[in-house]
């Protein structure tokens, strides 16, 4: 047996080289890889463009050229001069950038969590929202808003400083509460669907039931809370990125990045699950461990992001499906593509919700459901999706 030699590897350059008119199975496969890679590159470029545009618009409209020069100046101060108006940089980096970073991270997290859940449970309808994770995490966040100060005492009101930025402990508390209740929901759903022959609809049904259970919890928390907490909870439940600050981004971004890398590392194994648990296990995959680990990780990033943004549904379902229609079901490409697509959708919706009724703004959920819904209906009617699962 020859070990895998360097010359035997498929290089990116092979994938990107001129399209060959190779109709052998190998040729079609390599052409497919090229298409997948191209798709990821295109949506990444689109994401960067939207981010730059989004940085520029708002109460003060900053020309794209100034935005670009401000970014170039921030990255390489010695090579590029900043924009003429110095306060542009302050608006861009202190005012708008945290919010954009939050939208990108949250979109990526929810989308990759959705595609992991769909892949490991072999079920096209599951997502953080349909499995009840979102409702559960929101219950945790509501609990934190109402009871955080009594659980953590004075610690709840402390501010930590990381570098130049401050982070309040209430944020951490919301993250912890959300993760605990999010985990509780996924464990409940898995227990409900533990039998070997559980059908796809049973898991969904389990998720819906668990979701209602936690929604009842949220309603109860709202009912017993005082006016101030009620306002906080209601605002938070609407979902939005206005909570963004550099202090919280310093915690959120590394956590999400590491989790995404870990999930991408599992993608090769998750692919084997597409042929069924028995085949995957015969191929040498510890199916139960893989499913448990990947679901814990995806619940984790979902809950952490939700604790900042409130409930943002739909992305976890929509982004993976859109990507699947373009590049198929290979998790190695689907996960990163879904992440970028999720960021793109959330950031675009967030930008529109910021400017559509400026100077006031809409909760991002409203815009996203409208754009996303229309786009999704168009995609479904274009390709006959009913037969796909």
């Amino acid at each position, binding site marked *: 047996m*020859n070990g*895998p030699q360097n010359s*035997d*590897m*498929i290089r990116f350059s092979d994938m990107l080289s001129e399209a060959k008119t190779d109709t*052998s*199975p*190998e040729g*079609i*496969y*390599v052409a*497919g890889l090229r298409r997948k890679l191209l798709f990821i590159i295109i949506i990444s470029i689109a994401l960067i463009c939207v981010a730059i545009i989004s940085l520029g618009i708002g109460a003060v409209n900053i020309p794209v050229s100034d935005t670009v020069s401000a970014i170039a100046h921030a990255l390489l101060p010695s090579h590029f001069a900043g924009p003429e108006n110095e306060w542009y940089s302050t608006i861009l980096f202190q005012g708008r950038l945290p919010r954009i970073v939050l939208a990108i991270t949250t979109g990526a997290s929810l989308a990759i969590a959705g595609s992991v859940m769909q*892949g490991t449970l*072999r079920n*096209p309808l599951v997502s953080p929202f349909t499995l009840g994770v979102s409702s559960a995490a929101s219950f945790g966040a509501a609990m934190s808003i109402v009871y955080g100060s009594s659980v953590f005492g004075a610690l709840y009101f402390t501010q930590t400083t990381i570098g130049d930025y401050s982070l309040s402990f209430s944020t951490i508390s919301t993250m912890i509460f959300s993760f605990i209740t999010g985990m509780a929901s996924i464990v409940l759903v898995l227990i409900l669907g533990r039998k070997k022959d559980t059908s796809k609809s049973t898991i969904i049904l389990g998720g819906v039931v668990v979701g209602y259970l936690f929604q009842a919890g949220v309603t109860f928390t709202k009912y017993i809370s005082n006016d101030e907490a009620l306002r906080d909870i209601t605002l938070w439940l609407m979902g939005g990125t206005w909570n963004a600050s550099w202090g919280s981004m310093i915690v959120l971004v590394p956590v999400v990045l590491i989790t995404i890398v870990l999930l991408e590392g599992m993608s*090769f194994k998750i*692919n*084997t699950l*597409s*042929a*069924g*648990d*028995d*085949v995957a*296990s*015969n*191929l*040498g*995959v*510890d199916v139960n461990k893989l499913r448990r680990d990947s679901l814990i990780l995806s619940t984790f990033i979902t809950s952490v992001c939700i604790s900042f943004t409130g409930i943002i549904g739909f992305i976890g379902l929509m982004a993976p499906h859109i990507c*699947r*229609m373009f590049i*198929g*079901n*290979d998790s*190695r490409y689907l996960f990163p593509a879904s992440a970028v697509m999720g960021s793109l959708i959330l950031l675009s919706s967030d930008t529109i919700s910021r400017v559509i009724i400026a100077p006031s703004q809409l909760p991002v959920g409203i815009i996203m459901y409208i754009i996303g819904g229309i786009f999704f209906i168009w995609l479904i009617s274009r390709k006959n999706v009913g*037969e*796909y*699962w």
Partner: protein
Amino acid sequence: MILSVRNLCQGYSKRKDTLKDISFEAETGKVVSLIGPNGCGKTTLIKTICGIYDQRSGTVSVDNTPLCSMGRKETARTVGYVPQNVTYSGYSTVFDTVLLGRFPYVEWTYTKKDIRIASEALKCMGLEDLSGRDINHLSGGQRQKVFIARSLAQDPRFYIFDEPTNSLDLKNQLNMMKIMKDIVKEKKACLVVALHDLNLAMRYSDEVIILKDGFVFDNGPPEDVITVDTIEKVYGVRSKIFEENEGFFIHLYESID
């Protein structure tokens, strides 16, 4: 190499064993058929051999090395499984599905060699024209062939198939058995296959194991163990066996009761 199953017991409920004290050997270069009525334990036996279920007692070993002491990937390179009902997910292409068979060999990502082997496996099953198609656009029989191709890409010493001919038409059933018989001879591998069609078992296997109620009822060369008497005892069906130029043929004509 010899796959040997010794005193294997297996069951789903604590009180009752589905498989009771199963012992047999399967040698490379041979086609071994598992036959027996519904619910006799064929699928349970196959899944236990393939390491999908942990055995309750007894051993499954290859050349005296118990499978459960091998690493997961080594086991995967030794026994390859094709299920009775194939599971698949939307948007997976035929080629991606066949490539999954290379998983036990892959360290980081598929190499050109893996892609070449998967492509050969596709050609072997006559699927090269379907390689880029979505698996859920195929017919049941084509899907079954994709899964057989996937196990060919896995290239194990022991191919373990659970009723692979279920959704295949007549010609494909014969072809599949012929292809597998050739592969087994050529690669010095072994095929253990659960079958319902006694004529296929008679025609293509070197050895037959008859299961009844979780026991091994009989095993040996097909013409010795598939007899009118055995068929009546195991299946409860009257039959006649004729010898013609092409070999033995079993005619089933009446169920007893």
